[in-house]
């Protein structure tokens, strides 16, 4: 099992694609995400993010991305192979 370090990730939401459906917020196991006034997701608790990518996988509009530091991507590569 690859190690994850919380607190090193960024969440990027593309509002041109996002339809404010709430799926990412509902699926986030760490309660990183919440709805803003207009229903779009934002990340008030970014420090809890473990880069599980459930939000990315469940976004029907490809509007949310978890940005990881470059060294972590190598680990993700391995994860993706076994996904």
């Amino acid at each position, binding site marked *: 099992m690859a190690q994850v370090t919380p607190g090193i990730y960024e969440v990027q939401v593309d509002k*041109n*694609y996002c*339809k*404010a*459906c*709430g*799926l990412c917020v*509902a*699926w986030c196991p760490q309660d990183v995400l919440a709805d803003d006034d207009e229903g779009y997701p934002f990340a008030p608790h970014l420090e809890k993010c473990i880069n599980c*990518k*459930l939000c*990315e*996988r*469940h*976004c*029907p*509009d*490809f*509007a*949310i*991305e*978890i*940005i*990881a530091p470059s060294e972590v*991507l190598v680990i*993700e*590569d391995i994860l*993706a192979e076994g*996904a």
Partner: protein
Amino acid sequence: MKVQTSFIIKEYLRPEMLPSTWCGGCGLGIIMGAIAQAVHFKGLDKDNVAMVSGIGCTGRMSGYMDFNTIHTTHGRAPAFATGLKMARPEMTVLTVMGDGDAMSIGGNHLIHAMRRNIGMVAIVVNNSVYGLTGGQTSPTTPIGGHTTTAQSGSFERPMNLEALARTAGAAFYARATVNHTAALTKLIERALDVSGFALVEIISNCHVLFGKMNQMAEASKMIAAMDEDTQRTNPTLLRRADLPIRLTSPESPSAPVHELTEMEDVEDESRTWRGVMFERKGSVDLSKRYYDMLGKIHAQQRAAEEAN
């Protein structure tokens, strides 16, 4: 190398067509992402992949994906795909249909494509309702489900597609939900390995119509309910089809079905049964057998000419 999920997916989409016209939270986008990932992880060349879709919300998918795409007429996608596959056997053909499209108006084409064992991955997105026309009863609307043409609850027995596919001759049948995206991607990858007709039934959500009429108006709640409260959403998905098959005629295709165990554990009997429901060992796609036959005929002709 960058492997961010949405980055991979976007490689397979047509950005000028997005965002999609689907309602917010519709599982169709999740499915589209899973297809993109499966094609990516299989290392398929986009130029050698075709996507054929029918009419309905699901039918719109072919417009968003950057393959060779056909948005056909209602229910006829398997027939278009049959023609394409027989003409271009080397091509990977993805046929995407909704439940009404595949099982109702397209039932005939689906059955005969399964019987002929045409090499395609047929993705049937099952959301129990007609979405694009406004929430009418579909062949998979559960008994008691409320729709605009069954406002007091449907009393029709829903279609058991798995049982039908088993007897009609499909090579592979898997069921997934939009709740488990990793498994969904994996099952589509498995289907891409099959030579012959591989059907992947994907349980998806129409929270805007079906959900609203059945107390599941929120996307996330409906997706959870489809998986966990199957009794309410679609009881036919509670178990694998046990068929009372007693025919033993030599041509019966149900005889050589080899069942595999499910990929997901199914300890909880009340949940939707997911995974590979059956796989026919040794299946060979019709186009391959056909071109092999042509090769033999031509060889015979050449041999006859040389003999002359």
